[in-house]
């Protein structure tokens, strides 16, 4: 297992391309980041920037039209990319990393009791007996704040918020060190969102779980995040501590994204980013944000390197 010095997750040069009839979609294109135990990183970006593909690449949940898939993913120090598909399924999925997919509340099986569904990963991946697994499920329901008489109910009897909690309970039941949450609250109402985030914060404190939170909801994500990674067109353009990032993002894209968030009790009009994100097919060799960037200059014709500045990383020539 992990030594003290080893990070929980280290992703190096992760690439995931898809083949389509019109060309190669470079959904994840050379991603590097790491995450320590009991930390939460939020991956921010607009729709279509490759956020969800990154989650799938980490968990090796690949569709059939995969083109390139390469890079290294270290979980607790061991390279999980070297594992065979079966080893990966047995040793990594659910046990090491679990995932709450997008619209998880609608991904529960409608004809199986909620409790049985939540217990299932424990039965399959931890080899426990069914009543043992149901006991675990009951504990997890407590953690996420679902009354335990809901164990024997069917998904349609639960509200959206409760189903989302059940999906989170399912991700917790195998006690993984890392949970990937793909847009966990986007379909939920404001008050339910706040409740779910309180649940996640409590889980992080009580169980020491780490989170990768994938979202476009900047305001809500700041509740949980310790670190931030901003994605644009398949690449990470900025990473840093949440406390540094939110008040003063460095990358022009991140700055404009933050400026477009409407804020309460502010007389300032939110801004918007002109143009639209590039198609992930046939990306130019220049900086991918350059066509929309107000601060572009000659150097932006070349792909910018990742530049370290006060412990933060930013992929922009302005800081070179």
């Amino acid at each position, binding site marked *: 297992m992990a030594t003290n010095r080893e990070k929980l997750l280290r992703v190096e040069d992760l690439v995931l391309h898809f083949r389509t009839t019109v060309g190669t979609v470079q959904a994840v294109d050379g991603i590097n980041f790491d995450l320590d135990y009991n930390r939460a990183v939020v991956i921010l970006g*607009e*729709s279509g920037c490759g956020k969800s593909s990154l989650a799938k690449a980490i968990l090796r949940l690949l569709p059939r039209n995969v083109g390139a898939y390469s890079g290294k993913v270290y979980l607790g120090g061991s390279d999980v990319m070297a594992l065979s598909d079966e080893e990966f399924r047995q040793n990594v999925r659910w046990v090491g990393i679990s995932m709450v997919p997008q619209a998880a509340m609608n991904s529960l099986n409608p004809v199986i009791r909620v409790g049985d569904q939540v217990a299932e990963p424990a039965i399959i991946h931890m080899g426990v007996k069914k009543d043992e697994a149901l006991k675990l499920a009951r504990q997890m329901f407590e953690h996420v704040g679902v009354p335990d008489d809901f164990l024997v109910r069917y998904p349609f009897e639960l*509200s959206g*918020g*409760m189903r989302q909690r059940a999906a989170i309970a399912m991700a917790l039941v195998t006690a993984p060190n890392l949970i990937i949450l793909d847009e966990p609250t986007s379909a939920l*109402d*404001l*008050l*339910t*969102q*706040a*409740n779910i985030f*309180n649940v996640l914060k409590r889980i992080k404190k009580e169980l020491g779980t780490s989170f990768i939170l994938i979202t*476009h*909801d*900047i*305001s*809500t*994500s*700041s*509740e949980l*995040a310790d670190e931030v990674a901003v994605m644009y067109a398949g690449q990470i353009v900025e990473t840093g501590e*949440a*406390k540094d990032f*939110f*008040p003063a993002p460095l990358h022009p894209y991140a700055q*404009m*994204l*933050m400026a*477009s*968030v*409407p*804020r*309460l*009790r502010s007389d300032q*009009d*939110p*801004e*918007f*980013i002109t143009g*639209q994100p590039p198609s992930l097919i046939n990306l130019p060799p220049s900086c991918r944000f350059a066509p929309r960037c107000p601060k572009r200059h000659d150097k932006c014709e070349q792909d910018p390197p990742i530049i370290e500045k006060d412990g933060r990383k930013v992929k922009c020539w302005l800081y070179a």
Partner: protein
Amino acid sequence: MIGGARRRTFIVELDFMSQKVSAQEKPRQDLMVVKNLVKYFPVRAGLLQRVVAWVQAVDDVSFTIRQGETLGLVGESGCGKTTIGRAILRLIEPTSGQIIFNGTDVATLRGKELKAMRRDMQIIFQDPYASLDPRMPIGESVMEGLNVHRVGTPAERFEIMIETLKKVGLEDYHARRYPHEFSGGQRQRIGIARALALRPKFIVCDEPVSALDVSIQSQVLNILKDLQQEFGLTYLFIAHNMSVVEHISDRVAVMYLGKMVELASREDLYRSPLHPYTRALMSAIPIPDPTLKRERIILKGDVPSPLNPPKGCRFHPRCPVAIDRCSQEEPPFREVQPDHLAACWLLE
């Protein structure tokens, strides 16, 4: 009666697109007065599809919308926001109540008169990906309303369509293109152009930006604001994002389970909310600042079903400050401070 005369006046008015309607200086009058609006949806079941229950989507709601203002309407999903928006346009038939628009009760209009009224009241839909006909060039889509109302000659309609596209920041060559060729933000602007083509007085904006990325939301909001200035439009702006509503509204109404619980000017509502539900909503608004520590009001449980809403105040089972009276009697929706309405026994 209306057809011919209206058509002629419209041609005279064709020029008005270039004129700016000056912002209302005089005290704002009520453009729309909604009195005791009720909409129940029947729930049918069984072999004979008998009505077994009623969903009380909107239950006895009264409010006014003033000339030239934006009234924000917020609340959780299923609280009846969209039902109100559609009922006041008569897109769904209200069960009972009055909807007085410009002095006429829309709720009882029929036939030609209703059709004429519809020219003045338009709607922008939530999902720009689903609300445009994928097989119709967007110019046709924008012209559809003009054709239905037989505005001017075909050439004039075309002219108005091009003009309207330009108003929302699109170009004339876009008219021949199909919806799939546009981005989400552009599609929503086409949706706005559709609503604007007839030069209405009043537009219901039903979650117009919630399907858009945050980076382009404010672009659409700015267009809505500019058009309001230019054409003296009145908006009912339905949304669940409290920050967006604060940004665009003059007054804001809060709904809970088919009832309006609070209605006040934007400043009053956001600075000093009175109803316990509004307070809980306000405390849940996310702020992108991780260093900020706030006290949150956490409500227990979920919104009850509108099939069988709680007795008394509908919010009382989740209310952190409920008293005995709340479970017995329904609090009236009344003015508790000047221009600040709320329905709560604690404010009596």
